[in-house]
């Protein structure tokens, strides 16, 4: 009998070891997140002390005079990200419905799915180049027709490229939610004489809206942090944006541009504080998004 006991204890040990390994890996990711937050917080102390709360509403960013305010960049980040989200949402929901409802199986559907996923794999610098050579001249000719300063680069151009970059994130989640919808709901609607359009607008979209929203939220998170492509297309101007064709700047692109040659304690620390601010903004938007999803589903 002792043999069986030993075997059982061995199994139990294995189970325990396995579970603990999983816990360690899960905790590690949380630890890294906290570590990043604490590092940012400590490194931004000098600027927090020197600039205080004015950092968040000051609209000047003057490295020569050590006068730093993040407001233009906060606005730039929010405007580009939400504009990108607005542009990409009709496309992402349409594509998700198309792939989740109409074209579920078959070679064509597979090709479509893979192509859209592939969009996520293109390095952002390539999006930047493409934007610079293709979109900028197009936007410039549009601006000439509208009679605004024909720079070609600016918030609108950056948002256009961002909307393409974030598309695969919302599509892949929305498509899965739509295709996983229980069949009996749709069948019931059809049996009552509903048309396909009615099923989609009255059954599918209401049933899957929390999933669709989660997909958009994921895409928004990606847009807020995007650096390279935005830097190449936004015009990098330290001004409060005056419209969607105005040049601007985002928090991520200012950090990327200026960090490597930043000298002086307050300057470096102000850039890190901006990183901390971006971190907080992204977290807050995520929390709000989660609450909205909860309310939708309840």
């Amino acid at each position, binding site marked *: 009998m002792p043999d069986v006991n030993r075997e059982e204890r061995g199994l139990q040990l294995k189970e325990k070891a396995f579970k603990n390994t999983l816990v360690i890996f899960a*905790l590690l990711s*949380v*630890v*890294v997140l*906290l*570590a990043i*937050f*604490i*590092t940012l917080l*400590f490194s931004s102390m000098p600027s927090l002390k020197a600039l205080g709360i004015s950092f968040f509403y000051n609209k*000047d*960013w*003057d*490295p*020569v*005079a050590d006068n730093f305010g993040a407001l233009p960049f906060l606005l730039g980040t929010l405007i580009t990200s939400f504009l990108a989200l607005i542009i990409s949402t009709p496309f992402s929901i349409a594509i998700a419905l198309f792939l989740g409802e109409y074209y579920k199986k078959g070679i064509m559907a597979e090709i479509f799915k893979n192509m859209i996923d592939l969009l996520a794999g293109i390095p952002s610098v390539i999006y930047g180049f493409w934007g*610079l050579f293709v979109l*900028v*001249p197009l936007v410039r000719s549009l601006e000439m027709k509208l009679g605004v*300063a*024909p*720079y*070609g*680069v600016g918030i609108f151009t950056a948002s256009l490229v961002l909307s393409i970059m974030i598309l695969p994130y919302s599509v892949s989640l929305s498509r899965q939610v739509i295709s996983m919808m229980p069949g009996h709901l749709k069948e019931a609607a059809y049996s009552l004489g509903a048309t396909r359009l009615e099923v989609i607008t009255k059954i599918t979209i209401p049933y899957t809206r929390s999933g669709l929203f989660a997909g958009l939220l994921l895409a928004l998170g990606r847009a807020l942090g995007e650096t390279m492509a935005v*830097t*190449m297309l936004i*015009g*990098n*101007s*330290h001004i409060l944006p005056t419209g969607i064709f105005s*040049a601007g*700047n985002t928090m991520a*692109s200012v950090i990327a*541009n*200026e*960090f*490597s*040659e*930043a*000298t002086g304690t307050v300057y470096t620390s102000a850039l890190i504080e901006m990183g901390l601010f971006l971190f907080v903004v992204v977290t807050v938007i995520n929390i709000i998004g989660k609450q909205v999803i909860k309310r939708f589903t309840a």
Partner: protein
Amino acid sequence: MYLKKILLPLFILAVLFTSCGGNNSQTAANGKTAGTDKEGIMGAGATFPYPFYSKVFDVYFKEKGIKVNYQSIGSGGGIKQLQNKTVDFGASDAPMSDDELSKSPAPIVHIPTCLGAVIVSYNLPGNPVLKFTPDVLADIFLGKITKWNDQRITSVNPGVQLPDLPVSVVHRSDGSGTTYIFSDYLSKISAAWKAKPGTGKSLDWPVGLGAKGNEGVSGMVKQTPGSIGYVELVYALQNKMPAAQLQNKAGNFVSASLQSTSAAANTGLPADMRVSLTNTDAPDGYPISSFTYLLIYKNQQYDDRTETKAKGTVDLINFVLHDGQQYAKALGYAPLPAEAVNKAEEILKSVTYADKPLE
């Protein structure tokens, strides 16, 4: 309860993680200084002279068999690494400020190695060679002159047909020594510029669009009709960009070239060579020129640095000052004029190890 049980240890772990990071980098730094001669000479700093240095260091390795490891991480990074004593020499485009020198653990000397210049390029129909007086240039970049056919531009460019185009200013978006030299020049010639935005690697630009790197600025200028921007001379020469003739302090209009850049240093140079070469009184000098420097500690005996290592560093810099100069022109850098070489040699002779000069 459960939340508390998990969150507290997590927080402690996270703090440990962050503090560990700091300690690790410090030990790594100490390890590097204590390195043996086998790993060669380490340097870090400015990106602008990198092609020149990498050529000269390569020749040095072939002749003397000593490997030089130079990382072009930017002037700011080079200064920081020298201050932390993780490299044998630093490199910077701008001389170190008094503030930076006072924060360094020991006196540092500046040895110029070659010269660079910043040109003003533009995109106009036919790309004529334009002339700019200092006040016109400053007012364009301050946003006070907004049209190309402004009377102030046309009056210094008689015979050139200038279009009725708005002026679009393009500047660097990344922190850069090029911006530093350009703004240093504008601060010298314009009181309004000096008051704001002033001199620096990144500025609060009154007007214009930012683009990353020389390639970004030149790309934007090439794409936008009516634009004006500034790029390094090396980059402009390689890409055959149109460049304006600028009026120097003596009143002559000078086009940017390697000769006119070297000529800008034909002026009274201070003994420590920490000098801005913008707007010098050299009659045929190009007004937006600048030295680029190698930086070393005046007393080479620090930490556990061996005399061989100290000698090797000084010998390398001596090589750059003399044999190295012949490679400058082909790569688009202006070589040092004779007087500057002599003065740099004086500085190198003042570098000591155990109170004895190394040269």
